[in-house]
């Protein structure tokens, strides 16, 4: 559940579902806003979806730094292994 591959899979699923983008576009380096067409409200909703899915709290200052798929995966992994 907490291994990187599983977190990556789940993060990508949330991004695909929420932003309605093709799975192929959701690469780890993809930026939510620049590459995946998210607006500021989308990024807030994504953070809330991550919080719900992974049972963690992502404070605002950390949320601001989560701008790519990889940022999200790294942050969640760090929280889950802490």
């Amino acid at each position, binding site marked *: 559940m907490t291994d990187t591959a599983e977190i990556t899979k789940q993060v990508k699923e949330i991004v695909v579902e929420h932003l309605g983008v093709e799975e192929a576009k959701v690469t780890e380096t993809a930026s939510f806003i620049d590459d995946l067409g998210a*607006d500021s*409200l989308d990024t807030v*909703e994504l953070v*809330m979806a991550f919080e719900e899915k992974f049972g963690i709290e992502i404070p605002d200052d950390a949320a601001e730094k989560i701008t790519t798929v990889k940022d999200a995966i790294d942050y969640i992994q760090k929280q889950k292994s802490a």
Partner: protein
Amino acid sequence: MFRLDGKAALVTGASGGIGSAIARTLHAQGAAVGLSGTREEVLAALAAELGDRAHVLPANLSDPAAPDGLIAAAEAAMGGVHILVNNAGFTRDGLALRMKDEDWQAVLDVDLTAAFRLSRAALKGMLKRRAGRIIGISSIVGITGNPGQVNYAAAKAGLIGMSKALAAEVAARGVTVNCIAPGFIATPMTDALTEEQKSALSGRIPLGRLGTPEDIAAACLYLASDEAGWITGTVLHVNGGMAML
């Protein structure tokens, strides 16, 4: 036009005159209604009158935890909240010079802060569905002011500002946020006035009478409907022409 079949509406302050009229009207147009308020027996009687699609959801909105709980209960009972009507409110009048902090705060807490908390909680589902209606029942005094009501006027003006900011934030998701600003409405409170007082009051209203709860409910139905989908961040003044804004 203006049918609400398949929609679920949560109405706060549904035990009051305006709130119950709103609930009846939305229900008559096909919506499921969540009836919230503090007087459970009044809500139960209204639910019994409406029959199917009516849910009693008591809540004391002066409790900071109540709004989240109420939205969760409404979503559980009705499968979602498509329409939120922030109608709950009360007055605690007094001239500013003598107004106690707690009388200021109590009115702000329920009339404004609870409306924000309810909106925030209801928005999560609305944003996901890419549709929703949030309607705040403000007041003419939020625009014009009224002696003895610094707290109520501030809360009702605040509701308008909050709605506009929120409307801008969520417009891209198909969620609209609007306010209704009622003028003088005939309620048990105005029933206590003498005929002379009532006619003096009516004399200040170009349309020549006090408003009814149904006048407000009709405006609310309109803003709740699909037909009002291109209206957001506005204030619908329903005051018989008393203030032409």
